[in-house]
């Protein structure tokens, strides 16, 4: 096999592929990238993990057809260091593969290409397109709520729920739930379709989506694929039923609070300085036309800040994990945010003032177990100090 690439194009392809390859795998072949040249001017780089697979097509001059595997990390690290404006030739010599660029030559061990798992062909049941930018936006809003580890396997991915031309993506770790909506374009929009897309695939997508162009999405009952330009991702879906998220979304609210986002986010950041691992929550206290942001911890002291707010439904105190708040506020669009709540211990919703397409259901933190009367005290004190 002998294939010639432009260095820049090869680096781009190798980057996408090596990110999927898994050096920790018990199957050594999964730490390899398969380079395949079977057309005259197109080569493909393929990498696989247990669930996620990627194939990148890279323009190339295939001088001798064939296929070869290269160790993903070494290969990528090497080609990345080649002069980006030159050509590079990959060829097999016996058991070795050599990568030559001008006077630079690297030689690495290879594994039999026949051992590389076969790319599973997929029969799509549902296909649609959407702007890469839109998918990116959805992922930015949802991905941080999808846990890396959880006993409940179904939570280890995001729910893709399609109702006609509306895509709803949901992620939750059991304490915070993100919900983001986008419109899709499909020739045959389905009445109803659900699938859980694994976190790792979403991470890979998030890294490679662009502001322009379309992404073609395809589902069947077991698999999902995303094609963005010359990159094709194919993955198994997470098996099982996603929890009925609609159940945890409150439908009616007794209280509504309107706050300017940038000052609130800044206040939360400041408050976070006064929290520690044990006291990792901040208290929001709405009173009159103000919201007080409070934090305290044994080690670091106390914090108090007041911001203007529009309070509907009376005075209210509620505490949240400050990390959740930061993440939520960072990813909510628009300058004004809305907190909808009922009781200090029931789920609350954070959303953008004017946007219906994204919201978060956040479970408040229960600050110690005291009666309501007792609960007033520490914060009354702190208010006095402030």
């Amino acid at each position, binding site marked *: 096999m002998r294939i010639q690439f432009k260095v820049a194009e090869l680096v781009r392809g190798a980057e996408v592929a090596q990110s999927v390859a898994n050096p920790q795998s018990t199957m050594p072949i999964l730490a390899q990238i398969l380079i395949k040249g079977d057309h005259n001017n197109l080569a493909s780089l393929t990498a696989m993990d247990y669930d996620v697979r990627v194939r990148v097509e890279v323009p190339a001059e295939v001088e001798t057809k064939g296929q070869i595997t290269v160790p993903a990390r070494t290969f990528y690290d090497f080609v990345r260091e080649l002069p980006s404006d030159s050509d590079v030739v990959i060829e097999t010599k016996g058991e070795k593969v050599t990568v030559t660029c001008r006077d630079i030559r690297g030689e690495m061990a290879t594994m039999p290409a026949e051992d590389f798992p076969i790319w599973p062909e997929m029969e799509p049941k549902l296909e649609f397109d959407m702007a890469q930018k839109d998918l990116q936006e959805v992922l930015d809003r949802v991905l941080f709520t999808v846990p890396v580890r959880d006993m409940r396997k179904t939570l280890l991915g995001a729910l893709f729920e399609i109702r006609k031309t509306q895509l709803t993506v949901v992620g939750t770790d*059991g*304490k915070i739930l993100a919900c983001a909506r986008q419109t899709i374009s499909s020739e045959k929009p389905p009445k109803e379709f659900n699938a859980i897309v694994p976190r790792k695939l979403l991470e890979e997508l998030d890294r490679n989506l662009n502001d322009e162009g379309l992404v073609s999405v395809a589902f069947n009952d077991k698999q999902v694929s995303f094609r963005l330009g010359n990159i094709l991702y194919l993955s198994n879906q997470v098996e099982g039923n996603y929890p009925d998220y609609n159940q*945890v979304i409150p439908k009616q609210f007794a209280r509504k609070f309107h706050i300017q986002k940038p000052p609130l986010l800044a206040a939360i950041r400041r408050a976070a300085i006064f929290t520690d691992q044990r006291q990792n929550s901040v208290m929001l206290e709405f009173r009159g036309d103000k919201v007080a942001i409070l934090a305290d911890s044994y080690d670091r002291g106390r914090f108090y800040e007041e911001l203007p707010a529009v309070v509907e439904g009376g005075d209210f105190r509620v505490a949240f994990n400050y990390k959740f708040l930061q993440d939520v506020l960072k990813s909510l669009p628009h300058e004004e945010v809305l907190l909808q709540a009922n009781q200090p211990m029931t789920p609350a919703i954070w959303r953008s003032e004017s946007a219906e397409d994204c919201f978060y259901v956040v479970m408040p933190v229960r600050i110690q*177990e005291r009666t309501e009367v007792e609960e007033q005290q520490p914060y009354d004190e702190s208010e006095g100090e402030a």
Partner: protein
Amino acid sequence: MLQEHMIRILPASLVNKIAAGEVIVRPASVVKELVENAVDAGAQRIVIDLANSCRDIRVRDDGCGIAREDLPKALLRHATSKIERFEDLWQLRTRGFRGEALASIAAVARLTILTRQRGELAGARLQSEPGQEPIVEAAGAPEGTDVWVRDLFFNTPVRLKFLKSPASELQLILYMVTRQALIRPDIGFVVANERDTLLEVPPQQPWRDRAVALLGMEADQHLLSVEGHRQGIHVRGFAAAPAFSRKDRRFQYFFVNGRPITHRMLSNVVQQAYKGLLMTQRFAVVILNIELPPQEVDVNVHPTKEEVRFRNEAMVLGVVHRAVQESLAGANLLPTISLSSPPGPEGRQDELISASHWFAHSTGARPTVPGDFTQWTMQTPSAGGTPGEHELSRLVAAQREFDLAQQAQRNQESCLNTSVESPCSVHPLGQQASPEPSPTTAQAEAQALLLSGGEYPEPLGQVADCYIVARAGENLLLIDQHAAHERLLYMQLRERAQEKVNTQPLLLPVTVDVPVEAVPTIQALTREFTALGLHVEHFGGTTFVVQSVPADLPSIDVGGVLMDVVDDSLALGKEGDLDSLRDRILTRMACRGAIKSGQKLSLDEMRQLVRDIVDSRMGFTCPHGRPTMILLTRAQLDRQFKRVVS
């Protein structure tokens, strides 16, 4: 028929046999009673010779001896020199007081006593057969008392039949003597079976040396001194570092006013003080003497005086708990790797010779000690017996064999129980230099090593996504990321268990299915879980629902915690008291909430972990008792690379 049901007064011989059954249940009881008598007699040396499957027992001492005119009374029941009035029971300073020992022994064995009082010219001999009047006559004897018991239980065939194997009887005797020897370092002890010396310790040893001699040389690096007192209660002794733990409680030696006792609550309290430092099913090694006014303790609870009652048990337990805990908290428990080979036989031999030497050379070396044991032989005082002399070389060989066997057993134990201890003998720092480092110096030493130049160790990277490699000044620090984080969480949780907890209610509660036999346990533990921030509700059947998690452990694997606790409680069975289960919950929560082995960490994460663990006071082992970090000092590295020759 009527005749058989008549009430009779039993003959004295039968009464004695029955009574003997309470005190003399096995050869070890004989040894115990005789050794206690010897100790009470102010002996400096006590030699115990065993033969005939431990049924022949001879205990010789150089104590005050018995006056010839008192000798006939010695075998009478309730004849004693140790108390006069009932009130004396509350002021006891002696081991014995009932006046039952010799009478009981005489009822079940042939007995010869040869004795000479200190300062008297002539001695006396008593010979007794069960059921017969003892014969007392004048005889030449060394100063002290020599009691020879033969054919134990020959007239009680049932008891004889129920004796355990000679080996286990011997083991019990050794255990018994060890307990006495541990608390009386001023007295020399020798135990020989069929003329093989099994145990030998010189008189006038420093207490710590005595403890090391009896627990094995390895103990030398691990014994921390314990001291505490409150309101007239003094606790003194030693507690071994967690690395020197054992798999049962036999190595927890308790003494009250110098009297060896067993006390379940004391043992529990000690385990509690070690909580979090020992792996499960491992038991701390301690030697603790509790001194308190004699009227504060009742030793007359059990015929063998094994058990005692304290007037103010809670206070005593409290003092012990605090003393042990302070000793551990102050100690440097940071393990280091010993890359050098373990101490060779040369060093060992030196120790042995010095340990045995007193015997051969005592006359010259220690003029204060009366008598010359080397002259003593196993001769029958009346009939001139056969046994020969103790030879130094034999003693040394026997002792070495014994020690090596112990060592082998120890190694085996440690291999079986943990792979951590064996491959590169991990031992705590700071106890090699001085025999009893004060807690503060040990702590300072650990701090100095870890915080070179006032800086926290700097993490260099991760090995196998499992260990953090850090530079601590010129030393190399290896940290088990999971164990270290687990330790931190455990300490946080423990601290927090005292106070109210912020909880993070779950949007999506977690359901957990448990084995049916675990349902009552979890129901019983609901309050404990709640106190720790886990709201567990019974959903019906075998299903539980977790409604909230501790706010500071939002990503804890609740199902895993619940299952672990269930497993623990099933394994513990009925013995699992609520308190230990509560601690297990903490341990499991820490484990499930901690960074996993195999998890990649950023340098910042590593830095934080290193800082936290160095700042923590007792962070050198994880809650399961595994070490969290290992330190390779510059000196060790140098030696290993042969830059310096050790």
